[in-house]
């Protein structure tokens, strides 16, 4: 309810208006002890600049990389991160939870 996502969404609108390619990544599902609840979001522009968070910082790097793909292709993507994931050694959630992150292009 009371997060400061308006700054993130404002940035999404401002960056888009300024001519940037912009993607929005949103936590849509969590299992176990995920650090950020569903609805938490991260906005990324084509410079790789980002604002907000979808985890405690564990997977943001990977989300930004995927978001750049989404900006280029225009096609939304669903990402999943968790300890059970085969990439866990690289970008797993140390808290043991699992999250699904929906990444979509703005505009």
């Amino acid at each position, binding site marked *: *309810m*009371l*997060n*400061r*996502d*308006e700054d993130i*969404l*404002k940035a*999404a*609108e401002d960056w*888009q208006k300024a001519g940037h390619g912009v993607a*929005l990544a*949103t936590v*849509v*599902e969590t299992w176990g002890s995920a650090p950020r*609840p*569903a*609805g938490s979001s991260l906005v990324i522009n084509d410079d790789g600049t980002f604002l907000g968070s979808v985890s405690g910082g564990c997977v943001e790097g990977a989300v930004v990389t995927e978001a750049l793909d989404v900006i280029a292709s225009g*096609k*939304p993507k*669903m990402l999943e991160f968790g300890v059970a994931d085969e990439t866990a050694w690289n970008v797993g959630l140390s808290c043991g939870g699992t999250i699904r992150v*929906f990444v*979509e*292009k*703005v*505009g």
Partner: protein
Amino acid sequence: MKLEILKELNAERVARRPAIVITDTANGEQRLVKASDIAADPMRAELAKQLRMGKSGNVEVGGKKLFLNVYAPTAKLVIIGAVHISQALAPMARALDYDVTVVDPRTAFASPERFPDVPLIAEWPDVALPPLNVDHYTAFVAVTHDPKIDDPALLHAFARDCFYIGALGSRKTHAKRVERLRAQGASEADIARIHAPIGLDIGAVSPSEIAVSIMAEITAQLRLPPKEKEQAA
């Protein structure tokens, strides 16, 4: 997200009106439902439930998995009384992401030196409060200990749908306050909305500790389901 949806969503957020974005995560299809349009929406039951909980989540409708992202306004905290407790309470509430306003007609109390970086209104409640648009997403605390200031402020809060009302004072002080408020037309339901003595009972002594107990009580009121709220109170 289409730019037009984003723009509309941002406009609702600036106006402090809740809205929900529905996304079909299989294909990215999306629509925005403003709070005022929920009653007429085919998904009204799901939307209303999600908004009431203030929580984003997934629902299945007609074989489609939909993500409902709830955008509720940032909570406000209105503090009546620029007193010592408020000096601890205001920064604490800001750290918890509340938009804080302090109201106190006594200019010696409501000074920027005592409250750096906090919006201060050195006016009586009848002047200060109407423009603040105290709404459902507002917590309201009266801590001046002065009935001339606290009482009219509390009467204003009763007329609004704020999610929390707290008033400083011992049980004895509160009993007197209740008598005065009743005499000024407050109903039993109004009186029951006041959390007094204010704050969770954690044995708080210092102004900072009292601020912690107040913010803990406000957080419980905001986040706990109704049944657990009673147990915490």
